């Protein structure tokens, strides 16, 4: 009796094991790994990016999965904003068999993780906007977010159209974003007839901008505009001290200041103009996304990074449909040839680029603590400075 019971139990277990294996095989799975910073200095970008991506995957799976072919699963490893931890995370994810990899929102850790993804032939996306990232890694690395060069071209167009002739650049050598981006702007601005009349440098995290402010105050003639890509906490400190010293020169900025922290600074940021990946104008895809994000998570999408994360799922889906396959190499080829894919943020094109998305850039002006939409620019290849 006991023996019989044992045998039945064994058969039952075997049956369950068998059926679950069969089930696993029949419902195809597309596994994505996210080596993203959920803590540390990059968390302000990667946390919202991941939240948006998760929603994107959920929507994708509800519509039949990626390319209608497979259910997407996601494995996340926190990189703690540490490059060594990022490398370990990327290796672990690839060992776990992911077919696509999301790397952190900054060029340095993404270059490190990219070496592993490139060698394994796994296509990659991230929130980093540094255009030097794709040549540093290779043909499996893609940038979806408006790159520093694309944004700088849009900002230069805005500056010349506004009638600015001279610009002052504030840079920090501490990151590519804070040093090269203003240079790209200077290059694009000069191409359009403007000139750079001076520049100053700061260290990230420095609380005191009095020297920079006195330098700007002492310029004769005063520049038409100040361009910087400083972000928190440096930008709030700089703009408070600049306006506090009575300097009224217009300031133009980049996407990284598009946060409630900066908008909440009060009258000192009134009139500051910035570039952004998109703007939730009424009826736009981003407005619909923001609404959906709030319904789903219970809190507002505070930045454009949520939508930029969501967009990855749309880009992947478009690539899979184009490739008709989920093989990493085919997904890579399809991604590289995408043209005018409509996402929540706008139309994205990779065809003819070095895997750096050609796309719209929104120009925004901060008024009364709120971002207001000015204009959409779509820089041409000629306008975009070379990285």
């Amino acid at each position: 009796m006991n023996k019989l019971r044992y045998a039945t139990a064994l058969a039952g277990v075997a049956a369950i094991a068998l059926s679950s294996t069969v089930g696993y095989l029949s419902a195809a799975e597309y596994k994505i790994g996210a080596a993203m910073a959920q803590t540390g200095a990059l968390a302000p970008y990667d946390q919202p990016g991941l939240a948006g991506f998760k929603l994107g995957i959920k929507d994708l799976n509800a519509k039949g999965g990626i390319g209608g072919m497979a259910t997407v699963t996601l494995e996340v490893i926190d990189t703690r904003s540490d490059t060594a931890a990022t490398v370990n995370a990327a290796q672990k994810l690839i060992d776990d068999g992911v077919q696509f990899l999301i790397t952190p929102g900054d060029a340095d850790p993404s270059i490190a993780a990219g070496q592993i993804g490139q060698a394994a032939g796994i296509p990659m996306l991230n929130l980093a906007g540094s255009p030097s990232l794709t040549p540093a890694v290779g043909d499996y690395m893609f940038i979806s977010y408006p790159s520093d060069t694309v944004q700088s071209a849009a900002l230069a167009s805005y500056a010349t159209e506004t009638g600015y002739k001279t610009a002052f650049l504030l840079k920090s050598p501490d990151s590519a974003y804070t040093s090269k981006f203003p240079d790209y702007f200077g290059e694009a601005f000069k191409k359009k007839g403007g000139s750079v009349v001076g520049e100053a440098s700061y260290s990230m995290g420095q609380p005191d901008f009095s020297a920079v402010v006195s330098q700007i105050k002492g310029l004769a003639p005063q520049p038409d505009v100040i361009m910087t890509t400083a972000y928190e906490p440096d930008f709030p400190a700089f703009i408070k001290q600049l306006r506090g010293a009575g300097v009224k020169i217009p300031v133009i900025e980049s996407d990284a200041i598009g946060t409630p922290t900066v908008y909440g600074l009060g009258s000192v940021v009134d009139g500051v103009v910035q570039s952004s990946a998109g703007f939730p104008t009424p009826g736009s895809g981003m407005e619909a996304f923001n609404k959906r994000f709030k319904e789903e998570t219970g809190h507002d999408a505070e930045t454009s990074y949520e939508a930029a994360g969501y967009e990855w799922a749309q880009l992947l889906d478009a690539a899979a449909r184009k490739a008709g396959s989920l093989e990493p190499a085919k997904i890579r080829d399809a991604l590289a040839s995408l043209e005018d894919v409509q996402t929540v943020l706008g139309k994205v094109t990779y065809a003819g680029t070095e895997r750096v998305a050609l796309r719209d850039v929104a120009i925004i002006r901060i008024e009364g603590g709120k971002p207001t939409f000015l204009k959409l620019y779509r820089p041409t290849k000629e306008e975009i400075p070379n990285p």
Partner: protein
Amino acid sequence: MEFVQYLVNILSLGGIYALLALGLAIVFSIVGLINFAHGELMTIAGYLIVLSLSFGLPLPVVLLVACLGAALSAVLMDRIAFRPMRSASVTTLMITSFGVSTICKVLFQNGVSARGRAVALPEWMSGTLTFGGFQIGMVPLTSIVLTALALIGLDIFLRKTTLGVAMRAASEDFVMVSLLGLRANTVIATSFAISGLLAGIAAILWISQRGSVDPLMGFTPVLKAFIAAIIGGLGSLRGAVLGGFVLGALEVGSEPFLTIGTAPYRDAIVLLAVVLLLLVKPDGLLPAVRGVRS
């Protein structure tokens, strides 16, 4: 006139460093702990400012809440993390404080937000005052006044009150103070409370300058405070204050000599000056006095 401007900048930046270094020194002199979680006390004070401003409390109450909250957090930090480690070595204590600091940061990132929060301090606080053609920002002015008040207040406390005298004695010879029947834990808790209070005041000044609070903001100030405390002589209270002003003077004073090419090396140049200073005075400018028993 430019000289006066530099002097104002030195006093305001040096003042913040002095308050922070003093907070580190007061705990170190008594417990032998270099509290690297001191910066997180500032972050806590910052979040309390954001929270109480959102409740619409009047500014003086907001600032009081921030300072008292930081003081209370410092006492709790001691009670939870450091008291069980009381007899541990300086290194163990320091590593514990790194642990506390990391735990706090992760709690802020996952419990509050990884993103910074804007601190909407009143507009007048970012304005300027003009005295006969000379402009001074409200923030530097507040820094100088608050630092002076805090230092004078602390000096009176340490000289005139029994607890203050006990603390000064404890910083020189802790065992002797215990033998004389003073409660060790009260003295230690008070030192943490004062260090928290100083962190709270420093946080108000630091935040009014930067305009936002984020989970990782405590790192830079605590590093500066540590350097200032070393310059002054670790564990010496007067030394910490002097060290703060010296560091402020080095940072602000080096500005006019830096070009666009050398400006990125400002911290390196300042630290090099500190190294040279320590070569001449290895115990710092005003070394701590220690009771030596044979």
